């Protein structure tokens, strides 16, 4: 999974998949990989949420 993916992007992609499926825009050939991608997105978000972050980094402001 791309490390840069935000929760918003993941959810949006997931919802995009839902819409495509419901509009029957997904070919049977792509069905398994599409579902797998959806699953991956969900898992990615869950794991990201569960991930432990020690503390919040202070950012050096350029001013």
């Amino acid at each position: 999974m791309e490390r840069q993916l935000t929760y918003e992007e993941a959810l949006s992609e997931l919802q995009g998949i839902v819409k495509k499926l419901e509009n029957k825009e997904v070919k049977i050939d792509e069905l398994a990989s599409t579902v797998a991608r959806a699953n991956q997105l969900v898992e990615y978000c869950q794991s990201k949420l569960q991930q432990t972050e020690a503390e919040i980094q202070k950012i050096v402001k350029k001013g």
Partner: protein
Amino acid sequence: MSTTKKSYTLTQLVASIKKVLNRTYGEQSYWVTGELVKLNMKGGHYYLELADSVNGINTAQMKATIWRTQVLALQQNLGEEFRQLLQPGNRLLFRVTVTFHEIYGLSLTILDLDPAFTYGEIELKKKQTIERLQREGLLNVQKQMRLPLIMKKIVLVGSPDTSGYRDFLTELKQNRIFTNFVIQEIPTTVQGDKAVTEICAALLEADNYAADAIVLIRGGGSKMDLNVFNDYEICRTIAQLHLPLLTGIGHETDEVVADLVAHTKHITPTAVAKFLYIRVGTFRSDLQTGLDRILTQALSSLASATEQFTNTNKFLTHYFQNIITDYRSDLQAKLHRIEVGTNEILAEQRALLDLSLEKSVVAAGHCLHIVQTIELPAILEKMVLRSTNLIEIQRLELLNLQEKVAVLNPLKLLKVGYTISSIANTDLSQYKGEFIGQELQTLTDQFTVYSTITKIQK
């Protein structure tokens, strides 16, 4: 100039001013409004600097004093509010007497305070702050920020001593939905003279963290307590933050300006905490719902696709059977046509044979008939005709001969008086000899005359 000028001592003048002031203002008291500019306390006495202004320009300024006994009385009457009211910057409604002291000059002695006026003033000021922020385009800056879907990294600004602060932390860490928050705490005073400065500093500090949001909390308090969050400086600081700010100032009725400027406001710190973890919960359930819908839809797509094939085999069977049936009937039709064609050919030939035989017989009969009825009778007839003709010709010939005999018969001429002359049985026309002296025989009907030729005349 003249040396005989009438003059008074300063004491005389001051005494006269005091006398006039006392006569005019005396022991009478007045309700006066003014802004508390400065406050000093000394020996239980409050020394105030009051001012008044029109359009930002000072129009009056005067010292005022609340004597210790009065302070104690007001503290007893107003309680905590007394301290809140006597914050520099507040506009106050005082009951005062005018006091003139020969040495210290003119001042006011405050006898009483009406907090209701100040609250109205607070509201007025609040309105002005809002208007200013609006003017400066700061009021909606936070609102225009995108609140992250998940706010897991939080910078908390507030006073750790307050119950609201503790409630917030407890709610975040002890709920059943999501507790994996990372919190950077930035403690600050939320009341007193230094509150504004400290809060602003704390907010700026909080803005330095790579967090998802800043939470500003204050666990409730009186109207005057919360008035600090109406402060323009604090609000401007909030508006200029990079991170979205959530407020949980903890009041139930009125909102403070900080709430208006903040991205999102909640009534209590607990409500902010709930908002944060419920948001995660919602996100999770959205994810799950999305995945469920995807799975359901995918399986349904598969099911309908699979169903398509249960019929496909039926169609295939149906169609190929149709084709085979067509071809079979085509073969039957051809066979039939062959039979019909063959029968026609045979029938035609039979008819042809019958006709040929009939034609033969008819033609033969015709031949016979012609010969019998025309040719042979014709021949016969011709023969009879020719024969008759032959006989007729002979008849004519005979007739001709008969006539000739009749014509040539000399005996007939003799009968009508003619005679025939000859010499020596030769007809005169045929005779070639000497005529003179010859005997001429002349035959008549009755007799023959004999004479001698004597003379020939030609």
